[in-house]
């Protein structure tokens, strides 16, 4: 892959990795009495390794190809593989934490293996490792294709992708060592947060520069969503992680906010991590791969406009529905609830837009598991957004909050929507990227589809049951007007559902492993297919029609 970079670019890569390695060394020395020092060494090894990769290739010949006539897909390929790697690791962790709730002694006699430490490895691993890599990789692909332009730069795509993965490694290894801010889905400490800001700004710059090169007058819907994902995640990340380190020689820091304000900030972040990481970005994926695979036009350009701006505007307000009945003032709760309900319309508009796009392609959905992944993802997106708005209603939330119902809801979204659209996109993308005739085995894609679907359904039903039972047991009164069940009673009642959810998760994990295997075999075993080479072409298109009056 290095041979596609010019010598100057290889030198640039060496410079960047050298600076990063130095930063790692400084961190290692400063944090020698703290787990942070381990992170310094990890950074040093990571950056040092890349330095040698770049240095080894330094004297290779300059690339001869005319780079403007093709797309730059190497980072996309690596991103897809990394995404699958994280999927297997993080979903494996998920099955393990789930099993610990059913059989609490299923751990090692070591601090790192307790539920509290490995749970964030699962959540961050899936959201950032699996989801984030898939988003970065597909966004590289989609922005090039829909702009008819090659990526702007050859070093920065690698910097973003690998830098992001370094963040993921620091995050996951940190949790095992007990480094965490405790802010849900934003657990990594200050130095990791600063690093992510650098990576993320580079990502935004890369995106804008590539768009600037576009041979299209208009920016395609998928790119709006990817842009919203990049921009708003940056905003959320920076504000939520404002903190003062206790020392520059240690990982520990203290949040700038406390109590009520911190609660609101955390859930403003937390809910919009769902909105702009797990929804917006993946809608970008959906808006490209679904019509492409179905070979059907998007049902409605205007519905796309409505749902996009609806999601960007309304979602931000919804975070406070995580704080119903708490010490957060009620006016904020009201806003959170009402905006969550109003949000349902744009959410369903996108799900509907996706499903209506499939009109005329239902035969393909039946026959093609890849497209079926995307179709079912859109259905789950619709279901979980409905469920989300429903659970945001105060009365419902009083029952569902703090219970497994929330966990079930999140997984309906994460497994049913995020993971399925990602796997569908990966199956659509891999043969194109590696120029293969098809996937190694369509039967394995079918197997993956059914395992994933069954796993999700088992998981979600188990959590609905346990959550609602738990919530009801907590609030059930006897005829005497006193509480009917102790907390322990409710805990005992959860056991069968915790077993069931572990099984559901194991199904899903098996599917992911099959998927990873299928992708690797496609790359290694399937014949090259040179016919269909896509490359940037001049846009022949004129202006799209102005949206006409309703």
């Amino acid at each position, binding site marked *: 892959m290095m041979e596609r970079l010019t010598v100057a670019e290889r030198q640039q890569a060496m410079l960047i990795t050298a600076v990063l390695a130095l930063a790692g060394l400084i961190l290692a020395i400063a944090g020698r009495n703290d787990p942070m020092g381990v992170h310094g060494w990890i950074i040093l090894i990571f950056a040092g390794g890349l330095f040698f990769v770049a240095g080894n290739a330094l004297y290779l010949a300059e690339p001869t190809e005319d780079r403007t006539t093709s797309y730059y897909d190497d980072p996309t390929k690596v991103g897809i593989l990394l995404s699958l790697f994280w999927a297997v690791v993080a979903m494996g962790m998920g099955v393990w934490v789930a099993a610990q709730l059913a059989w609490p002694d299923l751990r090692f006699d070591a601090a790192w293996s307790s539920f509290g430490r490995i749970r964030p490895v699962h959540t961050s691993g899936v959201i950032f490792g699996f989801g984030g890599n898939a988003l970065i990789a597909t966004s590289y692909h989609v922005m090039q294709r829909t702009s008819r332009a090659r990526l702007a730069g050859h070093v920065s795509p690698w910097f973003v992708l690998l830098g992001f993965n370094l963040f993921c490694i620091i995050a996951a290894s940190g949790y095992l060592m007990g480094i965490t801010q405790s802010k849900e889905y934003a657990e990594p400490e200050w130095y990791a947060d600063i690093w992510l800001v650098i990576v993320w700004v580079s990502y935004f710059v890369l995106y804008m520069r590539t768009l600037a090169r576009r041979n299209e007058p208009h920016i395609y819907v998928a790119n709006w969503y990817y842009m919203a994902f990049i921009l708003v995640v940056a905003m959320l990340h920076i504000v939520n992680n404002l903190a003062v380190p206790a020392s520059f020689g240690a990982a520990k820091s203290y949040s700038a906010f406390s109590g009520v304000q911190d609660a609101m900030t955390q859930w403003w972040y937390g809910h919009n991590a769902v909105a702009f990481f797990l929804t917006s970005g993946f809608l970008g994926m959906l808006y490209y791969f679904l019509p492409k695979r179905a070979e059907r036009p998007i049902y409605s350009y205007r519905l796309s406009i409505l749902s996009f701006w609806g999601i960007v505007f309304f979602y931000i307000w919804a975070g406070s529905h995580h704080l119903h009945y708490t010490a957060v003032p009620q006016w904020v709760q009201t806003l959170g609830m009402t905006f969550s309900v109003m949000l349902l319309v744009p959410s369903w508009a996108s799900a509907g837009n996706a499903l209506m796009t499939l009109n005329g392609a239902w035969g393909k959905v039946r026959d093609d598991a890849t497209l079926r992944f995307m179709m079912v993802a859109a259905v789950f997106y619709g279901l979980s957004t409905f469920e989300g708005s429903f659970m945001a209603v105060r009365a419902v939330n009083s029952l569902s909050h703090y219970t497994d119902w929330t966990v079930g809801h999140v997984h309906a979204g994460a497994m049913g929507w995020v993971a399925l659209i990602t796997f569908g996109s990966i199956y659509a993308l891999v043969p194109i990227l590696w120029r293969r005739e098809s996937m190694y085995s369509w039967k394995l894609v079918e197997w993956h589809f059914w395992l994933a679907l069954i796993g999700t359904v088992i998981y979600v039903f188990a959590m609905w049951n346990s959550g609602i039972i738990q919530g009801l047991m907590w609030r059930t009164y006897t005829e005497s007007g*006193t509480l009917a069940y102790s907390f322990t009673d409710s805990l005992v009642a959860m056991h069968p559902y915790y077993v069931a959810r572990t099984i559901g998760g194991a199904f899903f994990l098996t599917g992911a492993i099959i998927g990873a295997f299928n992708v690797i075999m496609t790359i290694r075993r399937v014949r090259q297919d040179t016919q269909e080479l896509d490359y940037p072409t001049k846009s022949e*298109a004129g202006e799209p029609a102005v949206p006409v009056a309703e």
Partner: protein
Amino acid sequence: MSVKERDPLTGHETTGHEWDGITELNTRVPRAVWFFVAITHIWALIYWVLMPSWPLVTTYWKGLLGYDQAIAVEEQVAKAYRDIEVWRAPLGELSAEEIREIPELMTHVERTAPTLFGDNCAACHGTDLSGAPGYPSLIDDAWLWGNDTDTILETLRVGINAPHPDTRFAQMLAFGETNILSVPEIRTVVDYVQSLSGLDPDVPAERLEQGQAIFADNCTSCHGDNARGIQDLGAPNLTDDAWVYGGDDATMFKTIYDGRQGWMPAWEDRLTEADRMMLTLYIQNRAAEAKQ
């Protein structure tokens, strides 16, 4: 592709543009969408007017209904309290015997007490009341302070060695730690005490005599001349087979060497008098059942 085309399937026009082969239809937003937009917005508007909603720099809109979640829950709790008082009030006035005579009242007690016990007491004494090392069983005959109603009520109220002004106080001295007894002496007295409850029968008589002498000099002031304990001091009977911490050599050695000071929370601040009466009745009933 710059020409607008009509999609043969839906009959809608495309926008006339394509991105990497993807085209879009210029379909109008379906009426249903506008319908739901209108409904949700109007509903939100009404809700905002009625309930606390928009912030106004240093204050916020309180809502026409004047609803406040804190006041609401306090009213609910107060109302529930009044409802419960209807049957609960006698618990504070009658004696345990009298309460037992009223089947209706006992039904309430049997309904309520298991959860109270589960949420407050079971963490130490177990959901089945059988205790755990360091936390006595409540269903056997061995009671440190006594199991009559008033005693249990008082123990619940003030706790043992708890931060309560009237708390019950009890302490097993650290005989080894403070060098009152030497290690061999402790081992000897362990053997002696074990023999009292029929454990470890193979100890030579001479050693038992030595043990008895040590016991008489050091232990009888609390555990009594006959080692049957003194409930006023919370000192356990050592002749039965019930052990708070354990009757094996190692545990007993530790008990005597390091001393013990158990801790039972005072529940006066957390549980009402009626709650404590219910728990007392519940414990006594479970103990009676266990005996059968």
